[in-house]
């Protein structure tokens, strides 16, 4: 088909859209846009949830790489040397140790069982944004003793009755208050609450943090061991690269990347998300294809006589087929553009107002790749749905078409 034929087909298509039934065009474009939104929204939301969870796990749980105790051992030993070794490696921003101990918190009449974590506040700042999540008071200092920071859910709210609480708390601890911590080994000490934080990551918010030196007092000895070390990678460095380096340089311990850990922890969740995404995509594509097929079939059936006339005056069947096919192409492009705008607005809105649950925060994570892939899938579905009835009607003989 030549340029002239294509030009005529485009003119006929454009005029039909411009001067034909406007409501039908607007509705069809809207349906395509809604299908696009449907195809993009759910996977985008799942990606957002996944990405949010991953970010929080990296920030508050494991960093980019986690060094745990070797199989059969309880701790990572020779801590100072191990930390020095890890921190000296290229690509490592900072490594920081963690050790935790079960304890009972006491505040006025309230008693609460929690996990008390010891950190090195200075190093922790490089690995976790916990220091920036203080809602009252301030973060721990490197040499603080007798001071503690606690999660907002642990601190509780004095205005809420104990029986009305979502989870047990200390009933409204404020910065400067003194709380008693009774450790599993029998060591008991009063701590001043230096700060209250809220990260949105439940397991961290239910913790209490003390300094490494305070934990040494609890244990009654210098701690040259840790339960695990979290390692933050410098920007641009791959987790696997750091894991390989740590293993090559003989870091004692079980080295795992965030990816390794997530595969274990969230593999089946991600697989379920992928299945839901696929079902949503297939349903969206089928709906669009069927709707466009019906729209174009009705349009061609209503225009059979006109198609017969066009053929009679010397318009080739290819031109006629493209006339209807191009109408779908134009409507599909408009629908996809509208869908992109709509989902972009939703993404901006959800970025500002994420869906918050006690476990995670969700926003719409849409990459250019998602837009391109879904646009292409929808476009191809639309072209097939439009061209099939157009092809069928363009092959009808002139007499039958003109008699319609």
């Amino acid at each position, binding site marked *: 088909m030549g340029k002239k034929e294509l030009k005529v087909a485009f003119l006929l298509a454009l005029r039909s859209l411009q001067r034909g039934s406007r409501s039908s065009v607007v509705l069809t474009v809207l349906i395509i846009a809604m299908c696009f939104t449907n195809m993009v929204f759910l996977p985008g939301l799942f990606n957002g949830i996944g990405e949010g969870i991953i970010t929080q796990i990296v920030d508050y749980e494991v960093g980019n790489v986690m060094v745990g105790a070797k199989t059969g051992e309880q701790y990572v030993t020779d801590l100072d040397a191990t930390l020095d070794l890890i921190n000296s490696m290229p690509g490592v921003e900072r490594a920081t140790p963690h050790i935790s101990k079960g304890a009972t918190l006491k505040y006025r009449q309230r008693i609460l069982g929690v996990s008390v974590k010891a950190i090195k506040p200075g190093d922790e700042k490089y690995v976790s944004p916990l220091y920036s999540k203080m809602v009252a008071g301030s973060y721990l200092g490197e040499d603080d003793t007798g001071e503690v920071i606690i999660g907002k859910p642990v601190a509780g709210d004095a205005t809420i009755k104990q029986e009305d609480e979502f989870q047990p708390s200390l009933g409204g601890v404020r910065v400067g208050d003194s709380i008693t911590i009774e450790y599993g080994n029998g060591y008991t000490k009063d701590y001043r609450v230096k700060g209250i934080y809220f990260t949105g990551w439940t397991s961290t918010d239910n913790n209490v943090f003390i300094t490494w030196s305070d934990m040494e007092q609890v244990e009654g000895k210098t701690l040259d061991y840790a339960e695990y070390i979290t390692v933050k990678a410098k920007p641009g460095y791959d987790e696997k690269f750091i894991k390989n380096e740590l293993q090559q340089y003989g870091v004692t311990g079980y080295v795992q990347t965030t990816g390794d850990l997530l595969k274990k922890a969230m593999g089946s969740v991600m697989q379920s998300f992928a299945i839901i995404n696929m079902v949503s995509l297939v349903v969206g594509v089928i709906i669009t294809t069927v709707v466009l097929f019906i729209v174009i079939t009705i349009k061609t059936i209503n225009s059979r006589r*006109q198609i017969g*006339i066009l053929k009679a*005056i010397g318009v080739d069947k290819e031109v006629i087929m493209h006339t209807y096919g191009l109408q779908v192409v134009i409507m599909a492009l408009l629908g996809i553009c509208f869908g992109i705008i709509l989902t972009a607005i939703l993404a901006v809105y959800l970025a500002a107002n994420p869906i918050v649950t006690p476990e995670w925060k969700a926003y719409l994570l849409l990459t250019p790749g998602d837009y391109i892939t879904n646009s292409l899938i929808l476009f191809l579905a639309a072209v097939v749905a439009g061209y099939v009835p157009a092809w069928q009607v363009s092959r009808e003989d002139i007499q039958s078409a003109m008699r319609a």
Partner: protein
Amino acid sequence: MIEITDLRRIYHMGNVEVKALDGVTLTIGKGEFLGIMGASGSGKTTLLHMVGLLDQPTSGRIMIDGLDILGLTDYEKTMFRLYKLGYVFQDYALVPDLTVMENVSLPAMLRKDRTEAQVKKDSYSILEKIGLCDRRDHLPRELSGGQQQRVSIARAMVNKPDILFADEPCANLDSENSRMVLDLFHEINEEMQQTIIMVSHEDWHKEYFHRIVRLRDGKIFSDGTNGAHHH
């Protein structure tokens, strides 16, 4: 020159065989204004559609300027209609979403031997001839029946076809508009030596025809020059 030999068209309606054309043999010379007349169901439109390549006969032969047009492929027939033939239909058959100018230009736009400028010039000049230049940006629904039929004639003539087919072009028009249309056909025939084959069942139209072929039951009942044609 059109040579039609033993043309037959048989329709099957259930078990009944209907002979719409039953052995029509006819020669039409260049520049003739031929009227095909006859009662309803006599085969006038069927004959027009066969010669105009809008339908396929059951048997017979049609030669136009020495070319056996029934042997052409589908695409060749389309191109033959585009380059050599023009059509005017009873119900005007304009594309409702195109303006008058766009309707007239449409067949010319598809011709490979016409530039865009030529298409515009030809369309404009033919609209001027039919007196609808000032209506060129209007849509067909904004015109009267007579005006629409004149646009349809302009569309048929824009490619300067060898043969112009008109299938009861005045059937939906009042007598004043009918006369206007027939005068236009006459003018085209006289000025451009245009071959015109027109189907009609209105007796008074015969005054415009050079020659009248009358059909009855799919056969030629009479064929004669019309000495009484009015111009």
